[in-house]
């Protein structure tokens, strides 16, 4: 009896380990701030912004430091950036939006990197997309069935929880000022067999990015509207932040924001002409004298 107890104490945990009852997490992460302000670099104070509309925008992912860890492939990034570029296109004040592949940016390249991009692509603003994706892996109690070998093929005992945060930050390259940003997030859960775990994890990572980008694009409207409202008041993000002046690209004239017009239309002009003519006719009929 005692021997059986000792055996169960030793074998039990071993079985659990063999069956794959473990927890773990993987993280994919990039940061626009880490790209623009790498460690040791001094903070560059933003200057006042002078935008010449319509502006030309480049969209790019902030480069990640450790590329060998990053399973977020370039084609996926380009596809997501294209969606973001489409969301910018057609908006008032945006002339062109270009997708910039990751290999044009170097980790820690800072604003010098952006200056080169501005010259090469002819852009005024850049939308730097950062992401932070955590993927949690857990094995459920069903993973004990993996011991049967067949169970590893049919029992979905692997749990996957993918949480993604994506943020697009728009910078004015010339002034080094951040104009606005929009954030999107997603959470995707899945279960899989250990045989398919790697494939499902990869699919869920992609789905997490897709959903986070969709959320980001939805939030872009309010971010742009908020920026336009602030710009109308003359500053980027309220008192204490850089001043902003919007000028027309062609004429150079200050572009109005929240402007009002006291404008009459053709009907009023026609009415005025009719009124004046009738008044003149009536006056002649009466033979009125000159005004006082």
């Amino acid at each position, binding site marked *: 009896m005692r021997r059986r107890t000792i055996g169960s104490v030793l074998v039990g945990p071993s079985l659990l380990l063999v069956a794959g009852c473990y927890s773990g997490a993987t993280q994919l992460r990039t940061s626009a701030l880490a790209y623009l302000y790498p460690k040791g670099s001094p903070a560059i104070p933003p200057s006042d912004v002078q935008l010449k509309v319509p502006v030309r925008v480049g969209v790019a992912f902030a480069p990640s430091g450790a590329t060998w860890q990053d399973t977020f492939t370039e084609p996926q990034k380009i596809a997501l950036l294209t969606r973001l570029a489409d969301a910018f296109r057609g908006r008032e004040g945006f002339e062109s939006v270009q997708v910039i592949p990751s290999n044009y940016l170097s980790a820690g390249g800072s604003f010098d990197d952006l200056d080169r991009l501005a010259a090469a692509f002819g852009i005024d603003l850049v939308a730097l997309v950062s992401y932070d994706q955590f993927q949690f892996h857990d094995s459920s109690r069903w993973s004990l069935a993996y011991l049967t070998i067949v169970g590893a093929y049919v029992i979905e005992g692997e749990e996957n929880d993918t949480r993604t945060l994506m943020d697009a930050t728009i910078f004015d390259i010339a002034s080094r000022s951040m104009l606005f940003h929009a954030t999107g997030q997603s959470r995707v859960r899945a279960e899989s067999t250990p045989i398919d775990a790697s494939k499902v994890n990869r699919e869920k990572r992609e789905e997490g990015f897709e959903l986070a980008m969709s959320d980001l694009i939805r939030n872009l409207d309010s971010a742009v509207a908020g920026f336009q409202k602030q710009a109308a008041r003359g500053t980027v993000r309220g008192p204490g932040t850089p001043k902003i002046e919007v000028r027309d690209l062609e004429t150079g004239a200050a572009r109005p924001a929240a402007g009002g*017009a006291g*404008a009459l239309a053709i009907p009023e002009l026609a009415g005025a002409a009719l009124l004046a003519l009738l008044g003149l006719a009536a006056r002649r009929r009466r033979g009125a004298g000159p005004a006082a």
Partner: protein
Amino acid sequence: MDARSFPWVCAAVTAACAACSALPDGGVALEYDRAGLCAGSIWRLLTGQMVHWTARMAWIDLSTLLLLGAWVEGRSRRRLVLALALSAALVGAGVHLLLPDIERYRGSSGLGSALFVAGALDLASAGRPRWLRRLALLGLLLLAAKAAAEYWTGTPLFSGPLPAGVEVVPLVHLLGGLGGGLACVVRSRRPSTADQGTGGKCGGA
């Protein structure tokens, strides 16, 4: 037309507005700018009504001003000055106090509306012929209806293209019209010797 009856005031005001609108910087220094006004540029309350966003807008506003101004001045120069002064004050105060979301404003439609109301009231109160009176009242009604519809729906009617971020403000038409009406009422109650017999009060002819 002798020199005395020439509408000098109207011509001068229209010419000044045209000159301001034709400034090379687009009248930036003269437009109503809330921030500039708060910084002490008080003249913008008035000069904002002398500059325009587009050439089309300037053309229609100033043509209306010239046509109606010449007519009203022909009837009474004092009434013209009073209508312009009252409407300019009402529009300037209205934009600043009643429209806090408006950061910049340009246009002389308030002045045009004032002269429209003053001219129409003058015709309407003249009494003869009767069809002219009805036509003047109809014109007033249509002007008020258009301004009210634009105000309540927030959609300008028949307005031409304006720069991005600029919207027609119907409230200034109502305020300008009010200024024109007040000018008629004031002149009707306090006729001057010079105006008597020449339409000094609305319908006084």
